[in-house]
């Protein structure tokens, strides 16, 4: 399981900078916001928390279809499925590798982008905390949707349609954490709910994911 995890991370780093692409996409989304809504810093500061969360979710979406697609096409996934490792562990390891290569870098770059969007300084620590806690949920839910659509040819669009509704609770609680911090409300309840969603996803999504993989591999 450890070697699978390390292999996925290495692949993500080497295959044409999948890691860098995600961050570049995040940067472009954030760049688009002032260009689209105007450079008024009061408006930017107000919408910054939501935009950062939406940007993080969209960037996370980009690399989801890679989680299983290549391994499915060249038969690696089938080989893995027949190995003594349970499919649930494979799913969990894939999701964890996805988080290390997308969620974590997104979290690390987010404060910089928040500065560009003139987010009030009271929000920074909560932005980092909510992304750090919330992005694992994105990876684990996303891995499930990737497993469901792995057999579909050109399933990228379908994958987005399936996974984005599932991201709604994470988005709401994650963004609310930061919004509440910037308008000096207590952000703690929202952060705890984000934590709840995240732990729930980490605990249960690998099982749903393994179910979907089994169907697609039969």
């Amino acid at each position, binding site marked *: 399981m450890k070697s699978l995890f390390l292999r996925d991370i290495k692949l993500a780093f080497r295959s044409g900078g999948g890691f860098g692409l995600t961050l570049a996409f995040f940067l472009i989304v954030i760049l688009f916001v002032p260009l689209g809504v105007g450079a008024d810093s009061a408006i930017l500061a107000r919408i910054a928390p939501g935009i950062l969360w939406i940007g993080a979710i969209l960037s996370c979406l980009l690399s989801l279809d890679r989680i299983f697609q290549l391994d499915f096409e060249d038969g690696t996934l089938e080989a893995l499925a027949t190995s003594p490792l349970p499919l649930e562990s494979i799913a969990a390891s894939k999701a964890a590798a996805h988080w290390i290569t997308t969620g974590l870098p997104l979290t690390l770059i987010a404060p910089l982008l928040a500065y560009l969007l003139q987010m009030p300084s009271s929000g920074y620590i909560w932005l980092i905390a909510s992304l750090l806690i919330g992005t694992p949920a994105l990876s684990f839910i996303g891995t499930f949707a990737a497993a469901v659509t792995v057999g579909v040819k050109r399933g990228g669009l379908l994958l987005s349609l399936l996974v984005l509704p599932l991201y709604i609770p994470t988005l709401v609680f994650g963004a609310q954490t930061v919004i509440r911090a910037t308008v000096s409300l207590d952000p703690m309840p929202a952060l705890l709910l984000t934590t709840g969603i995240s732990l729930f996803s980490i605990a249960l999504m690998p099982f749903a994911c393994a179910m979907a993989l089994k*169907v*697609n591999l039969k």
Partner: protein
Amino acid sequence: MSLWEYANPVKFMALSGRVLPVLTILSAMLLVSGLIWGFFFTPHDYKQGATVKIIFLHVPAAMMAINAWVMMLVASLIWLIRRHHVSALAAKAAAPIGITMTLIAIATGAIWGKPTWGTYWEWEPRLTAFVILLVFYLGYIALWEAIEDKDTAADLTSILCMVGSVFAVLSRYAVNFWSQGLHQGASLSLDKEQHVDNAFYFPLLVCIGAFVLLFITLVLLRTRTEIRLRRANALANRGRSHG
């Protein structure tokens, strides 16, 4: 004699063929009488006037939008656990009806919202929740359409329905949380059942009953179509392999 006997497509077709005409007539009668009673034989609301009468379409449609999803969830679970094809097909058949009910609820809500709240659309928790329900339906239907192998499609949509149900409920509560966070205190209560007068209550019950029957009728009809379609495909394939 148990309910599971009707999981056999032949028995299901025989029974549903007999029940369907009765259900059709019954739901049509209830719908017509409920709506006529509601539209013409109830008093105008002292504040909202005649606009209040859209409740007789709005509330039943909204209820069925949610109940259709619940029915899909139950049918999906039965498919996953007991592998009855009729169940999987019934879930597939219910989805377009559910999405239609959702659209009716949103549309009638918008029409009702304009004279009473002064806006067709407001990002109010309950309205938002219905749009969320709509995208869940869209994803579910899109997945059915995308997968060619029928059993794989039934399996994957059932798993999606199961996971989706959990996240749909979570979204409902998330949306409550979100809206409170934006504007405290301002609440537009749609819980009319508690305030509604008996003059409205009984025709509303008839309309809800009519929508339930209408839903059952349509699901049976569409399930029968799906079964026939699958039989036709099987025959066509057999013909091709022999020819």
